[in-house]
């Protein structure tokens, strides 16, 4: 038996359920030197803003037990430069392009959604959960009202499916997921990073110049898995699950918990080929268990 990894997610056909996480893969040029981008289900590009942003001052990364903190702060060339300078290159590959957007205002989200729709990205991922910027970002993602508002407005301006990326820094992620679903989102992605901190005890200074940063990597996996399960129980739109996935077994856990697809992010830094080995791991698992389609894995959890 050959396992079928393809699926339709929010109306878009994906060759595999494995995509790479926004902010960890740039615009694909760098890791494209290491493997064939055609082997990816999709690429979530670095978070875009209306105008170019230089990001936060360095240091922007700290290591933690089985995790990392980052405080890049949405360094990017702006949505127009992306469309003219990067999208044409990405379009050369047979993989889905997911544009990740962060606005300071609802209007900015809408402006980007319109431009990116015209530029024909495959999906728009609305980032309402970046912990590393002052305006926008996380502020939109921590209340049902503002999350629903952004979703509703972006939907009016987007001509491609809209996925909303949720923050784990909330009391009840299922409640926000429901609000976003009701507001018309076509899909959800979770989790963004958990807000964290490290100090240098020699200097009494935070390791990150931004004081705090976003935690990702294997350390957050159990939290991400729990949230995906809670959200899958709360909504009926598809879910892109992420947070600490570095092996095929991790990805299978995430799918079983209720994710329709998975993202690989931080794992790339230890192993540039991680998305490929995760894909192979899912496939091998399915073949061993005689599971024909990856859609049969999603939500297969048997809770007590």
């Amino acid at each position: 038996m050959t396992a079928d990894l393809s699926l339709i997610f929010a109306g878009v056909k994906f060759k595999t359920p494995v995509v790479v996480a926004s902010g960890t893969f740039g615009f694909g040029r760098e890791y494209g030197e290491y493997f064939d981008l055609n082997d990816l289900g999709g690429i979530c590009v670095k978070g875009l803003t209306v105008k170019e942003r230089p990001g936060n001052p360095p240091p922007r990364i700290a290591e933690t037990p089985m995790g990392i903190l980052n405080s890049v702060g949405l360094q990017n060339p702006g949505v127009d430069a992306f469309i003219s300078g990067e999208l044409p290159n990405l379009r050369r590959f047979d993989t889905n392009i997911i544009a990740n957007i962060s606005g300071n205002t609802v209007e900015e989200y809408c402006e980007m959604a319109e431009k990116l729709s015209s530029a024909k990205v495959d999906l728009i991922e609305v980032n309402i959960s970046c912990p590393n910027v002052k305006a926008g970002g996380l502020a939109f993602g921590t209340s049902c009202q503002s999350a629903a508002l952004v979703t509703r407005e972006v939907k009016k301006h987007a001509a491609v499916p809209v996925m909303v990326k949720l923050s784990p820094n909330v009391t009840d992620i299922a409640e926000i997921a429901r609000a976003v679903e009701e507001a018309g989102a076509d899909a959800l992605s979770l989790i963004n990073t958990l807000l964290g901190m490290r100090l240098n005890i020699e200097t009494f200074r935070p390791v990150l110049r931004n004081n705090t940063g976003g935690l990702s990597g294997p350390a957050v996996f159990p939290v991400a898995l729990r949230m995906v399960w809670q959200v899958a129980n709360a909504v009926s739109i598809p879910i892109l699950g992420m947070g600490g996935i570095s092996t095929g077994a991790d990805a299978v856990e995430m799918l079983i918990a209720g994710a329709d697809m998975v993202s690989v992010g931080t794992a790339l830094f230890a192993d540039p080929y991680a998305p490929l080995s995760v894909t192979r791991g899912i496939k091998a698992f399915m073949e061993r268990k005689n599971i024909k389609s990856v859609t049969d894995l999603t939500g297969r959890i048997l809770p007590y």
Partner: protein
Amino acid sequence: MPETYLPTVLDNRRLTETVHALRLQSAELARAARPGQFVHIKCGEGNLLRRPVSICRAEDGVLTVVLEVRGEGTRWLSQRRAGDMLDVLGPLGRGFDLSHKNIIVVGGGIGVPPMLFAARAAGAKAAVLGFRSRENAILAEEFRDVCEAVYITTDDGSLGEHGTVAGPLERLLREGGCSAVLACGPRPMLQAAAALAETYKVPCQVSLEERMGCGVGACLVCACKTVVDGKEKMRRVCKDGPVFPAEEVVW
């Protein structure tokens, strides 16, 4: 092409109390390596991130790195023994532009090792090496083998000249006849070297350090502020550097 390799440690030689030279067997890495580039090394299961380490020498299928124990990752590396296998991503980054005659290489502390690779490849005119103290001095003999002249300075005067690399460097620049300064070391040293080079109108290249994630240019955590064509621009130490023209760096 940068790639992940699994070279075997040939030997681990202790150069000072805290500095070790590891020779790694890898024809591919040795062939591809350019002076100023680095490798990104996985340091055991406990550390998620790789550690960037400059290439000190690359010859006959052997890549040499020299590392100072600073924390957990470098401690783990310093404990590797002959026969152990490492997980190495590289060679990475943009190295030195060696298309100059009469190059002066300047190294400070653990910034000295990559300058040996550059000096050897360029047949450098002179090397200026700064250390804290006599006990911290490394690779002086190796530089003497490949440079016309080697100047050593120590902060405490226990070896060579008392003071910083700025002394010998300024004298060499004043003498004239040199067409490029290449430097790696602590930021204040790089800044001083760049200032002197500017004074004497000699082009200068500096190798920067920043904390890294991916090491390949994708995650943007290793940003440094530069100026290009009068415009400020964040660039990536891992991919656009680690070597930058000194005049582009915003100190």
